């Protein structure tokens, strides 16, 4: 539905708005929207990983007590500013991860010679993944060498661009523009 470059541009713009947002409550709300968008995009999400990483960031920030003491657990003191700081940083970290997941399509290509280089690398990557030869730890070097020779020796056809089935409809661009606008509106509303 969305052209890869337009989706990526929208993702970049929304990432900036997300980073500039200072209100923890608004950022938490944006995070939920971003999670939903990433889920709708069909990308594989790992809630376990999100929770573990977020908990790690919050825990690391709590290790250095700052601010009002909220609770005491043995020698460990849970402090307000450290907690809010940790939650804020975790929201930023995971929010940017999920904005990327929602807005980066595997078919995204950069223009120019660098883009062609990356496209060629993807073609070689497909060949590596399709390789059916064995790779055993006991003969790792020989097996890896055989894999590299096989992948390299097949002639590299020019990477095919995706067949265009008519341009993306205006509603796709309008949807992306609306999403970007929605991300920036809270920055301009004073509480």
């Amino acid at each position, binding site marked *: 539905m969305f052209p890869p470059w337009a989706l990526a541009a929208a993702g970049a713009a929304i990432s900036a708005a997300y980073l500039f947002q200072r209100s923890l409550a608004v950022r938490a709300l944006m995070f939920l929207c971003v999670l939903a968008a990433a889920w709708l995009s069909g990308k594989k999400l790992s809630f376990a990983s999100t929770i573990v990483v977020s908990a790690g960031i919050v825990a690391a920030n709590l290790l*250095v*007590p*700052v601010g*009002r*003491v909220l609770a005491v657990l043995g020698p460990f003191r849970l402090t307000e500013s450290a907690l809010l700081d940790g939650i804020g940083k975790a929201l930023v970290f995971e929010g940017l991860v999920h904005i990327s997941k929602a807005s980066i399509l595997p078919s995204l290509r950069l223009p120019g010679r660098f883009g062609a280089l990356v496209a060629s690398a993807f073609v070689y990557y497909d060949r590596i993944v399709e390789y059916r030869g064995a790779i055993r730890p006991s003969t790792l070097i020989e097996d890896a060498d055989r894999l590299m020779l096989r992948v390299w020796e097949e002639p590299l056809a020019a990477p095919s661009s995706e067949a265009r089935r008519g341009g993306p409809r205006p509603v796709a661009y309008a949807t992306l523009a609306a999403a970007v606008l929605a991300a920036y509106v809270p920055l301009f509303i004073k509480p």
Partner: protein
Amino acid sequence: MRLRPLDIVIALAAAGAIAFAAVSAYGPGSGPVNAVLKGRGGEWIYPLSADRDVRVAGPLGDTVVEIRGKSVRIVASPCPNKTCIAAGAIERPGQWLACLPNQVFVSIEGRRADGGVDASAY
């Protein structure tokens, strides 16, 4: 395979750097030095490494505690005699300040570089 001379040098240098990082992270004197503020509303902790002013509420009003240049002092308080302000700055673990009329206590906690533990017991 044969190792070359600089392989050993680099491995030893890296190991040394890691050992140094470990000692400064886990060894004596490695923890942060904090200012602990207690008032009517609760308790606050702030590292001495970052400058800030903190207002602590008491029955007479707000006592203003300044953390600057890794030391702590009371700069304003609604008490009549201002002895807490005249007491000056503290900077070592175990030292303390107090504004008794306004029920505000300020102390410094943390490990000294020689491994001694602070003596705060409020």
